[in-house]
């Protein structure tokens, strides 16, 4: 791997950077200061983001500048507007936003404020998953410090920009990471995703124009305004710009969260960052970006990690959470775990998703436990095809169908053998705890 410049995790690696004094010593809040003191307009900030090529890190990879530009023109629509920061981080395999919130919470706040300025939001709500206590407490302490130092609140740094930052807690439901489920939950309701349109930019939180951004997405903003869009656009590949946080977990020697430029190959990350597969084993299968994207095989390990390259392989970058599985892994077992997850997390509003995730979970469970039936693989395929694409209110149904179809495409023989032999063909015993949806 060629040497490269880092910036996302530089402060996080310094002890005490979660406190304002250290954060500022390391250059913190300089991006916000620059925006407010240089006389940049919100439109100019949006433009910088567009030119920088920054894309969302919450999973869908949408252009951040473009998303911000969807907010209605303030001169024609004077409603209050909101920024919601998605810190629900619940996609299996994903643990990157947590690093930023725990170790560099002021960086998250600074990024949020720049985003809020750009979309003219008067309040930011950071929706932190309920289990992330340390993230929540560090952010809360940081907001307090920032308010005392005039980085948050009325007339920030004596400019005419005023913005509040509030924290909100989730309570264990994955679906609240979906942007409209998140808004329902922020309003104190069950996290049932909303039908779109209207899109959040037209009618989001409390019927006001709202932008929802992932933690890591806005975290990039201060670097971009300080170093310039051209600098950011100069890193990475054609349509994937800058550095990104990559979580790597599963059967590797050094699981972790690493900062890398787009364009790095999966093999480089596996070998040079994660220390290779554990126990000297081979890579059998992996998720490149959380469990909602298509599985790839060991033969795909030379793929470049970016949006286009992964799409070309039939998968996607998702949350850039690589989950690596060795050659002693039962695919039936993996899919049992994945299908159970979506069954547990479906909110139940759409029949395709509610019924589909239940069936997938049941069938994968019985295959993994040596009780599969002859036509199970065909049934799974038909079910998954009935669940996606775009047939439901939100993309959770797709998220369950995509890994399922990839498992059938890549490991059909193994699943069929598993059914025929009534046990895993590798001789891997069935799990002791027949995972009946948690709770």
């Amino acid at each position, binding site marked *: 791997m060629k040497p490269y410049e880092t910036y996302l995790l530089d402060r996080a690696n310094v002890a005490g950077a979660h406190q304002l004094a250290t954060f500022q010593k390391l250059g913190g809040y300089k991006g916000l200061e620059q925006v407010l003191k240089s006389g940049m307009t919100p439109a100019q900030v949006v433009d910088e983001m567009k030119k920088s090529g920054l894309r969302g890190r919450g999973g869908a990879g949408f252009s951040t500048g473009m998303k911000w530009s969807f907010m209605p023109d303030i001169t024609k629509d004077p409603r209050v507007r909101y920024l919601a920061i998605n810190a629900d981080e*619940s996609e299996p395999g994903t643990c990157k936003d947590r690093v930023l919130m725990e170790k560099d919470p002021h960086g998250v706040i600074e990024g949020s404020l720049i985003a809020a300025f750009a979309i003219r939001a008067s309040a930011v709500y950071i929706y932190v998953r309920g*289990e992330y206590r340390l993230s929540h407490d560090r952010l809360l302490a940081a907001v307090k410090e920032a308010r005392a130092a005039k980085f948050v609140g009325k007339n920030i740094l004596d400019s005419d920009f005023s913005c509040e930052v509030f924290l909100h807690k989730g309570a264990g439901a994955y679906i609240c990471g979906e942007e409209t489920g998140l808004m329902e939950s922020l309003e104190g309701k069950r996290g049932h995703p909303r039908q779109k349109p209207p899109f959040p930019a037209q009618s989001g939180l409390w019927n006001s124009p709202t932008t929802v951004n992932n933690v890591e997405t806005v975290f990039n903003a201060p670097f971009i305004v300080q170093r310039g869009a051209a600098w950011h656009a100069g890193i990475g590949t054609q349509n994937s710009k800058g550095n990104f946080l990559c979580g790597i*977990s599963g059967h590797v020697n050094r699981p972790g969260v690493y900062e890398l430029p787009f364009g790095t190959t999966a093999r480089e990350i596996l070998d040079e960052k994660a220390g290779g597969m554990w126990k000297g084993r081979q890579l059998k299968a992996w*998720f490149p970006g959380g469990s909602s994207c298509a599985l790839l095989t060991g033969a795909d390990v030379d793929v470049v990690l970016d949006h286009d390259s992964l799409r070309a392989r039939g998968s996607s970058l998702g949350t850039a959470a690589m989950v690596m599985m060795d050659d002693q892994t039962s695919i039936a077992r993996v899919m049992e775990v994945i299908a159970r997850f979506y069954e547990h997390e479906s909110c139940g509003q759409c029949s395709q998703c509610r019924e589909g995730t239940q069936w997938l979970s049941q069938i994968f469970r019985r295959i993994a436990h040596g009780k599969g039936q002859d036509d199970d693989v065909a049934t799974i395929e038909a079910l998954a095809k009935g669940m996606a694409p775009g047939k439901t209110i939100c993309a959770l149904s797709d998220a369950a169908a995509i890994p399922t179809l990839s498992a059938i495409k890549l490991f059909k023989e193994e699943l069929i053998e598993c059914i025929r032999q009534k046990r895993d063909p590798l001789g891997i015993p069935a*799990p002791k705890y027949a995972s009946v949806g948690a709770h």
Partner: protein
Amino acid sequence: MAVPNKLMALPKKLTDEFDELVKNYPERRAALIVALHRCQEELGGWISPEVMEDLGAYFELEPVEVFGVASFYPMFNLRPVGKHVVSVCHNISCDLRGAQDVIAKACEVTGAPLGGTSKDGKWTVRHVECQGACANAPMFDLDGVYHEDLTVEKVAQILGGVR
């Protein structure tokens, strides 16, 4: 605010907190989920029907609406739990690195069945979905604190040391 004068289960300390909390939102009920968290933390580890009734009164909602919200979110316990709660992640990254063994050991050490509470009421052990600690799998959450990079030995040691 039309706060009812008779809240049976909510101590003043909490309603004072909620009075501050609701100011963070344009609508009062938005604070409900955070309030449920605080009730669970302060009032015995679960949300009793009485608490739901009071929250309904406080937020000007029907108790059934409060129940609808509380029951939607896995973190809220609608029945009593043990004095200590061990939530073991059983999602993919943890499963690949031995979550099943962690569950087995946790149940063995505590005497609690998976998804249930030990006879002495001291322990609840349950499985949960991905907790965002995947690069430090396997893991469990013990009373709100993450324990990561677990081995069965560590499980025995950590849980064995809890009073």
